[in-house]
Structure formats: structure tokens, C-alpha cells
């Protein structure tokens, strides 16, 4: 199979470029990550990318394949148009090859205080939560922080330092939606900002690319409607 892969090695002094590889691989049942590993193991040791779980749950190997942000480990090789073009996720800086600098992404995540805030004395046993209240968290807590959504978002491309991006906002809403959390007002105060939240224009690229099938746009919409409700 034929691949065109984005290469950048800052030490070399060379500009980024696309490199072609011809790999002998039977695509049946194989994923893009299998091909990347095979290229590294047999053709070019210097090809650099992140990987860990290889089953779509750790979020290490977000890359752009033929123009779409995906997780390499769950993207089948079969059916991909050749040469398969693999690039780093867009907009965040590239450290090397397919490895991007996620510092900004993580900073936005930390900014939404992604932890439960509940100042009541802790009960002896678990806090009770009805299955219905718990169901409010489904589609939110499963985020794996791969960055596919945020780096596909034009609003983020334009204001990466100020707009929190779909992943961070999804996690922001995950705690607002938790019946056990007591900091909804504080969280809404933080998000009520022309950039942090309101740069989202519902373009929905995030929904399209999320490898876990989550819907950040919907979560952002829910935050917006809570803000409206609060203002009334």
C-alpha cells in the first residue's frame, strides 16, 4: 500500500515535507496504526508518532488521515484512498512528524476545573444518584482527550488561546451536568465569556470526527441554554 506521511524533524533544519512509503501489508482487518508501526519497524525507524492502548480508549494517536481527524488505531486501512495521506492533527504546533504539542489543549482542559466540586461533608457510604441523573453524564464522561474534535474546529483554529474548544467545553459540561456537583454557578460564570464558550458557532466538525461518537456541540448548546435561563 502507498502512504504519504508528514515529516518534520526540527533538528535537521529542514522544512516539513511529505514522504512517500510503499508498504507490503495485507489491509484486511488492519488499522492505520498497524501500518505506521510496520513502517517504523521495517522501513524507517525515525518515523515518530504517539501510541499506547491501540484500541481506541487512550487517545494517544489522533492524526489526520486523508483530511479527516481520526484515531489511527481504530481506522481501518481497507477502503482508504491511496496514497494514504497522514498528517499531524492541525493547528497545534508540531514537535516532530505526527507528534503535536498538546500543551494548549491540556491547559484549556484544566481551565474548566475538570473535577467534582462538592463541599458537603462526605457521607459514610456513596452519595446517591438516580439512574436518570447518572444518565445525564452519558456521552460526556467517555471523552478520551485525543484532541480530534478541538483541532477540527475552525473557531479553535482562529482563537486557539482564547476559545476553550469542544473537548474542554464537553468536560466543563460533564461537571455541570453531574447532580453531585455544587459549583454550577461558578462554572457558568467562568464560561460566560465572548471567547471561551461563545466562539462556538455550531459548525459541528467536532461531532463528525469524535472517535467515541460524542456530541460536544450539544453539550455546548446545553451550557448556552443554562446561561440564558440564568439570565432570565
Amino acid at each position, binding site marked *: 500500500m502507498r502512504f504519504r506521511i508528514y515529516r518534520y524533524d526540527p533538528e535537521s533544519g529542514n522544512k516539513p515535507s511529505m514522504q512517500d512509503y510503499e508498504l507490503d501489508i495485507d489491509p484486511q482487518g488492519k488499522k492505520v496504526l498497524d501500518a505506521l508501526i510496520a513502517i517504523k519497524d521495517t522501513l524507517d525507524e525515525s518515523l515518530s508518532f504517539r501510541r499506547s492502548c491501540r484500541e*481506541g480508549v*487512550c487517545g494517544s494517536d489522533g492524526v489526520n488521515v486523508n483530511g479527516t481527524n481520526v484515531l489511527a488505531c481504530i481506522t481501518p486501512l481497507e477502503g482508504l484512498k491511496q496514497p494514504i495521506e497522514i498528517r499531524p492533527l492541525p493547528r497545534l504546533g508540531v514537535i516532530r512528524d505526527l507528534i503535536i504539542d498538546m500543551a494548549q489543549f491540556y491547559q484549556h482542559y484544566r481551565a474548566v476545573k475538570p473535577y467534582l466540586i462538592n463541599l458537603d461533608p462526605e457521607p459514610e*457510604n456513596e452519595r446517591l444518584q438516580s439512574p436518570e441523573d447518572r444518565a445525564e453524564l452519558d456521552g460526556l464522561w467517555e471523552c478520551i482527550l485525543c484532541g480530534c474534535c478541538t483541532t477540527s474546529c475552525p473557531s479553535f483554529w482562529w482563537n486557539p488561546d482564547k476559545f476553550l474548544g469542544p473537548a474542554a467545553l464537553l468536560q466543563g459540561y460533564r461537571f455541570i451536568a453531574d447532580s453531585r456537583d455544587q459549583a454550577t454557578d461558578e462554572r457558568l460564570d467562568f464560561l460566560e465569556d465572548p471567547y471561551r464558550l461563545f466562539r462556538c458557532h455550531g459548525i459541528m466538525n467536532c461531532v463528525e470526527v469524535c472517535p467515541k461518537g460524542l456530541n460536544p456541540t450539544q453539550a455546548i448548546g446545553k451550557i448556552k441554554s443554562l446561561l440564558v435561563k440564568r439570565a432570565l
Partner: protein
Amino acid sequence: MIPKRTFDAVIIGGGGAGLRAALQLAEANLKVALISKVFPTRSHTVSAQGGITAALANVSDDNWHWHMYDTVKGSDYLGDQDAIEYMCRNAATAVYELEHMGLPFSRLENGKIYQRPFGGQSQNYGGEQAIRTCAAADRTGHALLHTLYQRNIAARTQFFDEFFALDLIRDEAGTVLGVTALEIETGEPWLFEARATLLATGGACRVFRHSTNAHINTGDGLGMVLRAGLPLEDMEFWQFHPTGIPEVGSLISEGVRGEGGYLENKDGEKFMARYAPNAKDLASRDVVARAIAQELRAGRGCGPHGDYVHLKIEHLGAEMIKSRLPGIRELSMQFAGADPITDPIPVTPTAHYMMGGIPSNMHGQVVAPVHTGPEEAVPGLYAVGECACVSVHGANRLGGNSLLDLVVFGRAAGIHMIDYLRENPIPRPLPQAEVDKSLARLARWDKKEGKETVAGLRADMQKVMQDHCGVYRTEALLKEGIEKLDQVEARLPDAALSDHSKLFNTARLEALELENLMPIARATLVSALARTESRGAHSREDHPKRDDDQWLRHTLYFSENDQLDYKPVKLKPLTVDTFQPKERTY
């Protein structure tokens, strides 16, 4: 001189165990650094599916004594009963604590934490099936890992993400004073000085060709410990999970059988009834893995090559599968091409978990024999989680006890470290020679000439382990395995990298990981050859019976001359009566 950072404590590994310990220390206002070779939520804890076991009694009548009995029995009596009591007794508290931290457990109608049955669980010491494993759908590891990471953000733990730990720094008295580590992005080595060092580096199933484990599970802490002259414990015991997806290795949770799934051979027979008439599909993992291996051997496997069996859950219905087992369905569709709502999932026993590891006690202290005397704590060194051998899992771990192990002993180690740091307020002088030794090891990979590749050697090592140290073992098979491994190891000095760049050089990382994996493979084969009995996950066809007279003891393996030593199993619990070894049936 390399850049140095000084902390009270340094933790290596950002999975469940490392994060739990870090939290304890950070919340006590100690200066703690957490070094992880990946961003913490990429750690392998994230792949745990089915749940965390604790006798909450939310669904079935239950108490921690029964959990303890099941764990001792599941360990095939090799587990240390003091540590097992400590874990089971603290299990409920640990789970409630996670809930208070915000972990999104699934819920029962009454609002309590959802629990599901898992293998090897019983009420009343071997009676009816217990329902004991607490779950967040089938993504409990993800929920646990993210929750702990989030709490550490709140507690302002200092993270050093994408730093690869190289070597422990030990002075002449044997005290551990910190570690050297490679900053992956810049390629610069650092020295992390700390009065207490905790290893939480996870498992090492990447010694096998097929495994459920992440690529990162290369046993780095074990390599560090062996290089420091310390032993590894019970390395012959590796769990083969009954239900991994063939070739790919992805795990299909035991929770699937807990929710009512069952195994079938090619004749459509629910064969587990023949092997475990009472517990059937929910027998212990070693029992189910052997049963599947027997079916495959007898030619009753499914598929064109007869190399897997079927796991069926269609009868549970689409709605139940979507709500309780959504992650499993995803994995099955992605990696086996089967939607379990309509099709059976192909599964085969797959290397999954390392019961052995760095010898430690229930405070997380690493322990080792001193000269010819009894074991003592290694000052300043701790280990918890899969890299450690406490030993709560003995010869076979029960499902749901791994996540529990992480948080119970992560917390226990944190508590002990706080005391240790108070009692040892003055940093000892760092032996520069030890730092230099570590840097020399790193520099070894700068060499340009060599005809072997890291990927080639790794593949050969993994094949040796897969072929010679699987579910069933014999003396001849293991001896041949050691000979073959000798040959692979002998080629290691002739390995060289073609990529000598500094920045984010993942080829160099893989070389360093291979240097950790190789001695682990050796420890496993040597320990397995010596143990002439069958116990838990270690099945010797030439010694099919458990032999308590000779082998009710832990193996200790030292790298120097492949030396073996043994220590007794701690049969005496903390407060309750000993569970005496007896025949183990399900």
C-alpha cells in the same frame, strides 16, 4: 552534570496506582513529582473494563470476609493473607472514596453503585455467586483513571509528562535517593532527587507476542529494580485472560460473562459446564483459560483454523448490551468484525496480567532479603499496582481485584511515605557514580554500527515467550525457551539505532523498553522452569498437581547468575483465621 530537580517524593507512572499515591502525598502538602512516559490518561489503567470489586452488598448479601476467601482461593493459596485481608477490608472505603471524588459509577434504581457478578465470586465461602464488582458501564478503568487524574489537578500535583525513567539511584547503604529520567521531547536526561521513590510502572505483557496490554506495558520499573540488584517475585505467574480477541489481543471483559454471556465451542456446546460444573463461565480466569485451550487442542475450536471459541451475548438483547456493554460492542465491531447484538465474539486466551513483580509489603515498601537474612524494606523505595507483588493475587488474580489493588495500595503507600518522609527529613548525598552509570547506559544507544534492530529482537523475544511460556508449560518447552532467549539476548549488544536524533526519539525509547523487557522474559522462564508444580496460572503438564509441601512459597529471582531464592507465603491474616489451603474447584 545534568539538570536536577528535588522533591520530597517522586512517583514513576501515571496510572491508577501512581495517581492514587500522588494524591495522598499532594493533599498532605508534600512536594511530589509524578513522572510518566505518557500523558497520564494514556496509561493502561484506561483499558480496564468490567469494574472494581468491593463487598458493598448493594445487590447480593455480601461482606469483606467472603471477598477475602474468594481472593485467597483464587490465588490458589499463594497470596499473602495479611495483605489480602488489608485489601478486602479496605475495599468498600476505597470505592466510596472514588465515588466521593466524582467517579461516574453506573447506578441501581435506588441510587446506589451498580454491581455485577464476576468470576470466582461467592457468598458464604464458596456458596452462591456473589454480585460484587462495581462498574461504570464497561469503562470502569477509564472512569477511575480520569477521576484520579482530575483530583490530582485539583491537588496541584506536579506532573512531568512524557519523561521516561531510566534508573534508580541507590547509595552504598542501599537507600534509594531518586531516579534518572529522560525528557522525551528534548532528549535531555534529568535527575530527580527525592527522599522517597515510588514505582507504579504497570505490567509487562509486551514480553508476549499476543497480549491485551497497551504498547507501553514494558515493565520499566521491573527493569530498574533488577538493574539495582533487587529481586522480582513470582514471575512465573502470568494471567492469560480467557477472552481476548484473536491476533489483535484486545480484551473482552469478564463482565460480559458476568452479565450473562457464555462460551461455546464449534459444536455449539456450552463447554464450561464440563470444566466447572458449579461456576461454569464464571469460574476463575486460569480455569476458563485452560478449558478453552483444551477445547482448541481437541479440535473443537471455531473458525477456519479452529483457533478460537465463541462468546455469545445475543440473548441479552440490544438495549442491555448498549447500556451495560457499549465499549465491548465497539471493540468487537472494530477488531473482530462482529456486532455482539447479532453475532458471537471470537475469543482466545491472551496474556493479560502479571501476578508477580517487585516484592513489596502492604505498605507499598519494596522488600528484599538482606545478605542471607530475612527480607527487609529497601529504604526510600516503594512499589504499587501491577508492577508490584504484594502479593494479593498469588498465582491467579480475580477479575475486579486489579483496580482495587491500585487504589488500596496506592493510598497505603502514600500514607506510609508521608511517615517515612517525616522520619527522614534530611536528603542523603547522591552518589554521582550511579548517575554516570545510568547515563552510560543511555549513551550506549548512540553507537552507530550494529546489524541487529530493536524491532527484530523484540519480535524474536516475543515469539519465544509466546511459544514457550503460554497457558501450558513443560520442562522441555521451558528449557528450550531459555536456550532460544539466550540466543536473542546475545544479539542485543549488536543492536544499533539508525535514528540518533535527540528530540522525541521514539526509536530510542523502544530500545530502552526492550532493555527492560528482556530480563523480565528471562526471569519468567527461569522461575517457571524451577517451579515443578501446577498452581493457578502456572500449569506444568509434567507436574499437573499443586504441591503445597514443596511449593507453598514465593519465588525470588535475581538477575545475577539467574539466582533463585524462596520465601514463605504469609498464611496468617491480620485479624481473622487463616484460610487453610484446600483443593480448589469451581
